């Protein structure tokens, strides 16, 4: 990356232009991580709508179709997917509220933005973890 400004141009000669560094060499401030995680959890939730659709269609179709869904949800992999779905909702919800606060002009100071990003990470893990554990206590396991 260090020699990027001197890389050959279309003519084959080095251009010698100043270039901004590639994404990979920046530090990862927590605000940048939160921004990327917001987009990633958004994509994950888009995938999650397929599971939501499956759940509703299976429940509407009858006990046989529902048994297939229930077996998949009770499988350890299904439980991981369910926890990921739940955490993605919690993160996207909390960070979405952070975005709405920015939209009306609050929370732009750097220390504030860093603190709220940390709060979103901690809060989403606590909420998702707590809800998942409560779900397990109530039913002896999600999907069982």
């Amino acid at each position: 990356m260090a020699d990027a400004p001197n890389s050959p141009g279309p003519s084959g000669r080095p251009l010698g232009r100043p270039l901004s560094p590639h994404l990979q060499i920046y530090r990862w401030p927590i605000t940048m991580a939160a921004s990327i995680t917001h987009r990633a959890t958004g994509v994950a939730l888009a995938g999650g709508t397929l599971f939501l659709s499956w759940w509703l269609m299976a429940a509407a179709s009858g006990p046989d179709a529902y048994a297939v869904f229930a077996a998949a949800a009770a499988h350890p992999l299904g439980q991981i997917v369910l926890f990921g779905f739940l955490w993605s909702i919690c993160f996207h919800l909390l960070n979405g509220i952070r975005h709405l606060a920015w939209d009306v002009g609050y929370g732009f100071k750097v220390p504030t933005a860093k603190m709220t990003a940390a709060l979103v990470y901690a809060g989403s893990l606590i909420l998702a973890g707590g809800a998942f554990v409560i779900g397990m206590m109530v039913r002896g396991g999600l999907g069982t």
Partner: protein
Amino acid sequence: MTRLNTPLSKIEGLGSSKSGTHHFWHQRMTAVALIPLSIWFAASALAYVGADQGAVAAYFAEPINAVPMFLFIVASTYHMSLGLQVIIEDYIHNEGQKIALLLLNRFAAWAIGSASAFALIRMALHP
């Protein structure tokens, strides 16, 4: 070159952006709606994803559960299509691929939303 649009349409025109703040505003409206709806959905899913088919169908047969679920399906699939559209516009620079993916994005949102809504309505109307 002669411009055929009227002076009014020129001053009202949004130039190459075509649509002003429509996308931004709809994403925010659905975001605000999804604050209570997604909390309600997460709680319902936690309580009922492990229940048997009869319990799930009975839960969504109640109007007090079917209506928020319907609103959640509409708001979340619309919010999803708006969000994925931004990601496609950010990362796909080939015009043909971009248009194909933007179409696919909208079709998928309608397909997923419709499938979920029809399943819900079936449970709500045939308890």
